[in-house]
C-alpha cells in the first residue's frame, strides 16, 4: 500500500514537473520575444 501511494505521488509530481517545464519553455520564449521588441 505504501509503495503504491509512493508510486502515485511520484507520478503526480512528475506530471507536474512536466507541465512546469513546458510552461517555463513558453514563458522563456515569450520573454525573449519581448526582449527582441525592446532591442
Amino acid at each position, binding site marked *: 500500500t505504501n509503495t503504491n501511494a509512493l508510486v502515485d505521488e*511520484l507520478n503526480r509530481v512528475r506530471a507536474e514537473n512536466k507541465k512546469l*517545464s513546458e510552461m517555463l519553455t513558453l*514563458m*522563456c*520564449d515569450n*520573454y525573449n520575444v*519581448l526582449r527582441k*521588441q*525592446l532591442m
Partner: protein
Amino acid sequence: SLDPNTNPFDLHFSGKLPKREGSDSSSVDLVKDEKANTLQEELNRANSENKKLTEMLARVCKNYYALQNYLEELQSRKSPENDKFQTEQLTRKRKQDIGELVSSSVGLGCGTSEIISGDNSTVSTSYYPADKSDSSLTVKDGYQWRKYGQKITKDNPSPRAYFRCSFSPSCPVKKKVQRSAEDPSFLVATYVGTHNHPGPHIGGSRTVELDLVQGGLGPVEEKKEKGSVREVLMQQMAASLTSDPKFTAALAVAISGRLIDQSRT
C-alpha cells in the same frame, strides 16, 4: 555449534542448512522496503526539481512582467490616443453621480456598471465595494487579467492600475482600476472593448496578476491555485523561438533533469 568436518567450499552447503521459518516473507519484506526507499528517494528528487522549476518559473514570470510593464510604458508614451482616452475617462468619471450608481447594487463580487459606446470600442465603468485598507487595486469581475502598469500623477494622486485581458492579444479588452475619489470605499474599474471569448464566471475564477507580479507562484501545496495560474499562463504564451543564453541555460538544466528522469523509468 561448529563442525570441523564442514567443507566451506561446498557449493551446496547453504542448501544443507536447516531452513528458517518465515525466511521467504522476510526477504519479500526486504525487497519491498528497498523498493519503497528507492521510490522515496526518487520522490524527494522529483519534489526538489519541482520546487526549482516553480522558483525558476516565478522568476521568469517576474522578469517577463517587469519587461512587459516597461514596454507598455514606452508604448503609452508614444501613443497620443492613449493620453486622449485617459483624459476623457477622467472627465467622464468626475461627472458621474456615484450615489445613484451605488444604490442600485452593492453586492459582493458584482460591480455596478455604466456602458458608453464609442466609435470603435465600448467603454464601461463598474464600481466594486472594497476595503479601504486594501491597496491591491484588484476587483473580482470574473475575468482574468494581466497587470501591465500602475501610476500616480500630480493631478491625480490616487494610484491607477492598468490591466489587459489574459487572452490578449487576441482579446483587446483593457481595464483601469482606481479607488473612487468620491467614495474611497469603492474601486472604479473602467473597461475598454468587448471580450471576444466566453463570459465571466463571477466568483468562480480568480485574478492572476498579483500572484505573478507581486509574490511569484504560491507554495507547491496550493494545487488548485497553481492549476489556474498554469492554465492562464498556457493560454497567454505565444509560440516563438528566440535565443537567450541566460534563460536557455536555465531551461536546459530543468529539461535535462526531466530527460534523465524519464530515461531512468
